[in-house]
Each structure stands twice: as structure tokens, then as C-alpha cells.
């Protein structure tokens, strides 16, 4: 197969597969965070700031996959 075709397919596959796990992880973090806020509304500030931090960590993995996809496509 052509190098260009393989590059394009690899780019698409990298970001597609690489975003599955972070999406599930962010959904679970968010759901547990909201549940914690619902059980204890007074701690909403602390819970939500820890939740945002956790979401940023999980999102970073998706960003790694995106960076690799961009490197494959443009370098």
C-alpha cells in the first residue's frame, strides 16, 4: 500500500482508539464527582476542584494520542 494511505489510516486509527478510554474515564470521574456532591452539598467546592483535576489527568491521555496522530500526519 501507498505510504500516504497508511499514514492517513494510522492517523485516524490512533486518535479514534486513543480517545475511547479517556472518554469512559472522564464519564466515570464526573459521575462519581456528581454523586459525591449530591450526597454532601456542603463539600461541593472541594469535590469539584478535585474532580476537575482528575478530569484533566484523564484528558491528558487523549491529548497524548492526539499529539501522536498529528506527528504521524504532519512530520
Amino acid at each position, binding site marked *: 500500500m501507498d505510504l500516504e494511505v497508511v499514514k492517513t489510516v494510522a492517523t485516524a486509527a490512533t486518535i479514534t482508539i486513543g480517545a475511547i478510554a479517556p472518554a469512559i474515564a472522564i464519564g466515570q470521574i464526573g459521575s462519581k464527582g456528581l454523586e459525591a456532591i449530591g450526597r454532601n452539598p456542603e463539600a461541593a467546592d472541594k469535590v469539584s476542584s478535585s474532580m476537575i*483535576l482528575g478530569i*484533566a489527568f484523564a484528558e*491528558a491521555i487523549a*491529548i497524548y494520542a*492526539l*499529539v501522536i496522530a498529528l506527528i504521524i500526519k504532519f512530520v
Partner: protein
Amino acid sequence: MEISLAAEKVAHIGSFNVTNSILLSWITTTFLAITAIVVGRKNDLVPKGLRNFIEMVIEYLYKTVNDVIGDEQKTKKYFPILATLFIFIVLNNWMGLLPGIGPIGINEIKHGKHILVPLFRGANADLNTTLALAIIAVITVQVFGVAAIGVAKYAKKFFNFSNPIKFFVGGLELISEFSKMISFSFRLFGNIFAGEILLMVIAYLVPVVAPLPFFLLEIFVGLIQGLVFMMLALVFIKGAIVEHH
């Protein structure tokens, strides 16, 4: 539509290549320095206008750092560099969204084609800037750890020869310090660079009205990434200044 992963050189001072992203970060630094000097001079009892806004931002950051660290003395030591990281990163991200940042450029001929090399580029869309910030952040964590508990105790976290399991865990901790550098830099770089590409693609497809929600998204992402960088550095500092169990 040309997208380049690396920042392009637009000028050179001697043998130092001035890229478009470092040009924008110089502009940000100058802007921050001038603002700080101008605002810091007035000292009325009741602040108003720009000074009021800046005091609001600083108070919010101080409260955030204080909530995590808890001790007021320690907060005063660690707050300046964390707030600087936050303000520098957020301002760089937002400057990259100003009108004219992409389109104004120099026409060059590369590989036989006419392309436009943008004169400015979001500073954090360049891996060099984010890697530099990440290295600064990680080295700052080490320095604060050593300053708080002494070299011997701090080194014991990584090189612990009392039993094989602790030695292995110490080695893992050492490797994880390096992986923190990589994760800091790639998180910031990936978010901002992908945002730039997103804006370019949307503007290419539907130039009228449709880019607006994406610009709002980028403003939000720029703020959140600065906040995350600061909070992560803060949490690592908090972990570094306590003694090992």
C-alpha cells in the same frame, strides 16, 4: 492550509533563531511587566479599576493555593511562582486567539510552493515553551522539597537502600519525576496546538459565524489548562514537602 508542528523561524539575532511563538511570548512578557509596573505604583487604600481587577485575580489564586497547602507561612513561600505560571500560561493562550495572529505573516517559498509563514503563533503551541515551563515546574518542586526537609531526607525518597521493595519504589518515583515533565509539557502543548488546528479547520470550512463557539471553547480551554498546570504543580509541591510516611 499549512499546518506545521514546529514553530517557524521568522527572524534571527546572530545565530539564535527567533520563531513566531517566542515572539508572542516576548510580547506577553513585556505586557505583563509593563502592567505590573504601572499598576503597582498607585497605592490608594481602596483600589479601583485595573488594580482592583488584578487584586481580585491574585486573591483568588492565593485562596486556591492556601486551601491546598493550609499553612499561611508556607503559602507565602510557594505562591509567587505558582501564580506566575498561571498568569503567564493563561495570557499566552489568550494572546494566541487575538485577531491577526494567524493571517499576518511573511510570504516565503518553501519546497517550491508559495506559503505564508505566520508572524505570530500561540506561545504554548510550540513544544519548546511548554517543555521549558514543565522543566521549570518540576525543578521548582525538587528545590522546594529540598528546602523544606533537607537534602538527606529528600534523597531518601528516591534512593532508599533499606530493603529491595523500597529501593524499587524509589526508582519508580525517580522515573515518575521525568514522566511528570513529559506529561506537563504534552498536556499543555496538545491542548493548545489542537485548539489552533481546530480553529483553522473550522475557519477554512465555514468562515462566517461558525467559528464563534469554537473561540469560546478555546478561551475556556486556555484558562482551564493554566489552572490545571498550576494545581498540578501545587499538588506535587505539597507531596514533596512532607516527610516520607
